């Protein structure tokens, strides 16, 4: 089974084609690298894969499945109900004075019990007696507006990053995006959020389930922090970490959702030699724990050392794909990216 398969991905911003017709397949338990000069479209490709951008063309499949909401009966019913509610709300809002007058004011005599049946009857009568413009027309307009809005909302949320994350695909960012004011544990717990089940009411009333879940996930978060070697700082603010640690925390946060596929965007950027050695070991451990790894990287020793296969991009096009040995032997890649010594 392939963990990730991208078919003919094209990403266009107005006149600029950032990624053109890129296809590749990552097998499960591989470490797969995407390389290319600055501006080659690597991060854009990642963003298109993880749902931050909607690809202009092409199909992305995770584990042989397109992650996308389909138009089901449930969504249809939800849109219809929204439309109906908006229609009703519009009619009531437009005619509130009449309706209130007819049903409440005219039936209520001070300090006497309210005749509810008369009130409801008169409310119904007043609703039936509405003119075309304030009744039917208002309902149609309100219903169209509400239904249209619900439809647009549904359409735009078909393929969002959160849906893809929930499908078991996690990522890190080139420019580290941690939650700086939260502690390390909390950062990791946010990554675990979609595995938690206790909701609003459990939290409000501190149900047994809430406590059980809290204990379990907190222990797991600490475990994950020690996996990446940050256990001793677990309650510090993420913003107080030095650079190399931040990258590791981002990886821990991404791993927290128990992803089957993890995308790392330049994990070694700005790291020194010993940090990179640690990182290579970490990436291997992640792979050995059963997670497929896709990474963007400039650091050649890391790429050639850990990856099973490599994809080379230049100006948004893919110019080669193969094992590290093949890439090293490919003259086009050497010229485009690796560079030759003779140019000095």
């Amino acid at each position, binding site marked *: 089974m392939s963990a990730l398969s991208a078919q003919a991905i094209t990403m266009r911003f107005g006149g600029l084609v950032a990624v053109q017709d890129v296809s590749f397949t990552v097998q499960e338990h591989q470490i797969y690298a995407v390389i290319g000069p600055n501006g080659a479209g690597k991060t854009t490709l990642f963003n298109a894969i*993880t749902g*931050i951008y909607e690809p202009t063309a092409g199909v992305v499949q995770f584990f042989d499945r397109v992650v996308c909401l389909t138009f089901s009966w449930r969504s249809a019913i939800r849109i219809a109900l929204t439309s109906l509610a908006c229609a009703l709300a519009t009619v009531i809002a437009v005619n*509130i*004075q009449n309706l*209130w*007058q007819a049903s*409440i*004011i005219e*039936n*209520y005599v*001070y*300090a006497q019990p*309210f005749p509810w049946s008369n*009130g409801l009857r008169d409310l119904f009568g007043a609703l039936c007696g509405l003119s075309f413009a304030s009744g039917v027309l208002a309902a149609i307009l309100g219903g169209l507006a509400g239904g249209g*809005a619900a439809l647009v909302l549904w359409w735009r*949320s078909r393929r*969002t*990053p*959160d849906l893809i*994350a*929930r499908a078991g695909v*996690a*990522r890190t*960012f080139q420019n580290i*995006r*941690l*939650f*700086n*004011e*939260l*502690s390390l*544990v*909390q950062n990791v*717990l*946010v*990554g675990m*959020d*979609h595995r*938690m089940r*206790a*909701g*609003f009411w*459990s*939290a*409000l*009333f*501190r149900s047994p389930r*809430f406590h059980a879940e*809290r*204990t379990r996930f*907190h222990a797991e978060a600490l475990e994950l922090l020690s996996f990446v070697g940050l256990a001793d700082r677990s*309650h*510090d*603010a993420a913003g107080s970490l030095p650079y190399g640690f931040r990258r590791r925390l981002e990886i821990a*946060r*991404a791993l*927290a*959702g128990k992803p089957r596929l993890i995308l790392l965007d330049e994990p070694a950027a700005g790291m020194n030699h010993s940090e990179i050695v640690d990182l290579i070991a970490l990436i291997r451990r992640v792979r050995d724990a059963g997670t497929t790894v896709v990474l963007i990287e400039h650091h050649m020793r890391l790429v050639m050392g850990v990856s099973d296969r490599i994809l080379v991009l230049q100006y948004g096009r893919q110019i080669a794909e193969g094992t590290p040995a093949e890439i090293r032997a490919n003259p086009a890649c050497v010229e485009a990216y690796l560079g030759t010594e003779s140019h000095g």
Partner: protein
Amino acid sequence: MRWRPGPIVCILGIAAVLPLIELFLPQPAHVSEAVRGVFLYAILALGLNVVTGYAGLLNLGIAAFMAIGAYAFAILTCEIYPFQIGFWPGLLLTLPVGALAGFLLGAPTLRLRGDYLAIVTLGFGEIVQDVLKNLDVVTKGTQGINPVPAPSLGGTMWTAEDEYKWYYLLLALLIVVILAIRNLERSRLGRAWFSIREDELASRSMGIRVERIKMLAFSAAAAIAAFAGGLSTSVLSSTGEPSNYDFQVSILALCIVIVGGIGSIVGVLVGALVMIGLNSIVLVKATAVLETMGIGGQSNVLLSPNNWKYLIFGLALVLAVRLKPHGLVPPRIERRAT
């Protein structure tokens, strides 16, 4: 670990014994009556703190939800309407009514951020006031709705003279609100709120359903603000006119949150004490004292401190932002298992 009282417990403990001060004062000063406003504004600001402090969504129309809660409560309980469901059911119903109002404002504005959202909420605040003013069939227009019933519990009534009863009722309800908010804050929901405040895209990429989390922030804040509105109506026994819930109230609530410490419950309590204490206790008393000494009052408006209050608020806000940008009591990085 041994239990130690946290700052919230200390503040509430002091509040619980505060009325005893009266025993040592030479003449009745009605301290507990003056502190009511602090409690009400603390509840309102705690609501605002959920949406603005936790989720980072600037809301300039919190007073609108207070108004919605106040009018919903008044219509449901006042004897000139047929519903008359009583104080406690009415007060409880302000929560879903407020939440619904928050949902209705939140739904179309989900994708707005920062300044744009602030403008929309500002506009919403004005619209609600205008609707309440002009929908006089339902809301009695600028007269306001009265009399709104006082609470009663097991045969004891809260009358206007029972200042201690009111004091402890408000204190108890404030504690309930604090507990509820604290429980939400220290849960995955609170964490999700923080995460979208810190970095919306990153939290979305971690699988947080940002729309849902924002809606919950909006609705929870609106529910709490509506609760404060209903409660204030009962304290005053009237909704007052719609302009009692104007932009100034929203800004005062925002000042409390910012001066106190954005995103911190203790901060909001301290902020409410400082700002409302200044507004309705210190300035009022100072004016009265000066007047008895023959200074200020009718003779010279410039010499009565009460007339300077907006200048003082503005100054307090500028000083707070300049000297204590995270507020008097900034939120701490949570060190416990949350």
